[in-house]
């Protein structure tokens, strides 16, 4: 079991991810914008962060800049967004994201599988 921080401004999706992750046995912590996400990350020190990009207060990229993944080597960040432009992918990866997944392409099962693999540090699907 691991602590997974969900940073997603859409209430329904945030809730769906929380259900999926808890069912997989993880402790899900939620935040609804970039600022709150940073606070929760500092507070809970999650193993995995599911990070949306298009959010109020601070965007996902701003979150990444401020969070500074290099200082948190034990935390894996999965960008989970519906922005699929290459420049966004590159920017996120350059700021320390571990995976970049389009929300629309990930079913609940796939999402759970990916997180589980990351937590277990297994080869990811």
């Amino acid at each position, binding site marked *: 079991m691991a602590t997974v921080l969900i940073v997603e401004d*859409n209430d329904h*999706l945030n809730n769906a991810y929380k259900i999926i992750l808890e069912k997989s046995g993880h402790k899900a912590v939620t935040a609804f914008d970039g600022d709150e996400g940073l606070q929760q990350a500092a507070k809970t020190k999650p193993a995995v962060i599911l990070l949306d990009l298009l959010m109020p207060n601070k965007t996902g990229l701003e979150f990444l800049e401020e969070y500074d993944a290099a200082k948190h080597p034990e935390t894996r960040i999965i960008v989970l967004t*519906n*922005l699929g432009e290459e420049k*966004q992918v590159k920017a996120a990866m350059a700021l320390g994201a571990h995976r970049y997944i389009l*929300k*629309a392409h990930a*079913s*609940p*099962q796939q999402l759970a599988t990916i997180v589980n693999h990351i937590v277990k540090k297994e080869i990811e699907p």
Partner: protein
Amino acid sequence: MTKKTTSSPKPQSTTRRSIAGSQESKRNNRHAPVGFFPQDDGYCVIELLFDAEQKPVNYRFLEVNQKFKQKTGLKNPVGKTVLELVPDIEKRWFEAYGEVALTGKPAHFEDSSEVMGRWFHVYASRFGGSESRKVALLFTDISEHTAAQRALRESEQHLRATFNQVAVGIAHMSLDGKWTRVNQKFCDIVGYSSKEILSQRFQDITHPDDFAASVRAANDIRDGQAASRSLEKRYIRKDGRVVWVSVTIAPSLGRTGRIKHFITVIEDITSRKQDAESLGYRSALLEAQNEATPEGILIVDAKGKILSYNRRFVRLWGIPKELLKAKDDNAALAFAMTKLHHPKKFLTRFNYLYKHPKEVSHEELILKDGRIFERYGAPVRKSGDELYGWAWFFQDITVRKQAETALRKSEERFRHLADSMPQMVWTADPDGRLDYYNRQWYEFTGFHKGETSQSWRLILHPDDADICLEAWQESVQTGQPYQMEYRFKDRHKPGTYRWFLGKALPVRDQSGQIVKWFGTCTDIDDIRRMLDRKHELEEMAADLREQHEQLLALSDAKDEFITLASHQLRTPATGVKQFVGMLLEGYEGKLTKGQRGMLEIAYESNERQLKIIDDLLKVAHVDAGRVRLSKSPCDFGKLLTDVIREQQSAFQKRHQKVVVHKPARVVKAEADPRMIRMVLENLIDNASKYSPEGKTITVDLSRKAGHAIIAISDQGVGIYKKDRDKLFQKFSRIDNPLSTTVSGTGLGLYWGKKIIDLHGGTISVTSKIRQGTTFTISL
């Protein structure tokens, strides 16, 4: 008193009369009888006659002596009145004698006789008592004395006039050098008034350099060594100027023979001195010119006798001195002829000139040693027409001729060069007058060849003429280079003009003086038009850049829109996908068969929507040229294996079999693996979807001619030939028995072909109806 023309002595001038009162007259008041007086004097006694008012009006002769008669010319005057003898006698005589008679005071005076032309001294004295009206008169002839005095006076007047009016200065100088008397001319010479000069000594005005000589001259006279001395010396005038004078000094002797003073006669010779100096100067100047001139000069008289020559003449010809000393023109001529290249021609010309003395000649002589002389000859005449001789001038012009030859050759080269230049070339003199045009000028303008006086206005465009010509004038005046663009009439195309670039540079000599202007007219019409076109194109390019910027901005805006639109479109579908997916995965408990069926339909519908969104976005990107390939060595065998494994569940679902043929050797090529992967996913998915259940899908990987070849074949319904061209078009759907049941956006093949094209590869299709279709990619 018979002779009327004779008159008694009568006074001539009151100034010479002394009627009474003087001591002398008292001393001479005599009362003597007639015989008492000297026989040389005339004597008479008269009786005054008075009128009623006691005014004397006449007198009567009572007694006369012989001398009186002789001196007066009156014959038998006794007893007669003077009016009887001399009716027009002046009444003042009555008054003079009447006063003596009435007062008794004697009188004496001098007067003259007009008839006799003699002067008399008259003594008048009352004769008898106070009542007597008689007066005794004594006449002394003083004519000679009076004449001597008058002559002396006149002589003095003449001397004074001469002294003052002569053209030379005359001055008396005391033995100690003081001026004692000067005339006006002397004052004029030295510039002082007579009053000023009389207060000075000769030393004061004598030039210091002449002082000693002046003193010596005076001493010689004083010491009796000379009767007079003359010298030329200088005085310093009052105004400071120096005046040259010729001075003659002579002594003025007294009765004892001693020198009273010096008499000096001074003549102003400044002008003469200046003339003399000027003549000397001119002679020296002429001599200097004669010797300084680069010309050899020979002067001969009318008979050919050598009169003079200068050193340059001797050096030029190398004539021996003894030959010239003989002053024989013929000998000199003979010598000169030995030096000449064409002596006979020279001699012929020489003889001709001597026979035609009025001609002035100018010729060039070529010497055997290669030198060239310029000879100029002119007759020398006296004031009339008489021939005095000949003047011959010779100048060595070899260097000049060589320079002229070099210059001529240089000009020829210049003209040849100018004619071979594409530009029109011209030259002008320092005043701006054009004196040469090259061949191109005449060809273009059509002006008569060789003409240089045509006005440019004839061919200049009216709008350019004034500014062009004014600029040229300014350059000529200031010496600044000339540059201007103007249009010339194109005679080959009437009514049209061509643009020219006109340039001109001044050519200066070593002293910086402009000796020539060198100008060109370069045809820049094509360049000018190209520049105009270039300018237009630049403006168009600027417009296009602006439009491009606008398009980029629009494109960015569109990209931004697509990005946001895709996000906004995906987000709701994502919610559906997650929650329906959770239901299907049993998050809310077990589903009935009916519930599951419905939810699966909902899920698949949502998936199709997401697929459409993805395909639309991909097509939008590729159409906008926004796809950037990230190429790397791509292992196509591994790529195909991954794609087939990912889709394995779909094949199983349809009971389809996938067969892969690939060579043992790895097939690699430079490609964007992510993009190629998506293309292969689409093709394999299509092969599965359009093949009936239980069929086999074959994937062949090979290498051919350096290209990776991937062929994906199905066992589907096949595609009619007429439809094959539509396959790679946007939104194309081919009608076949499976089209209605198979979901598709009609964008996959369109996008796939674009991606293969971007890789520089090809994608093609072969098909057989009811047998199957093969898509082949070559990379």
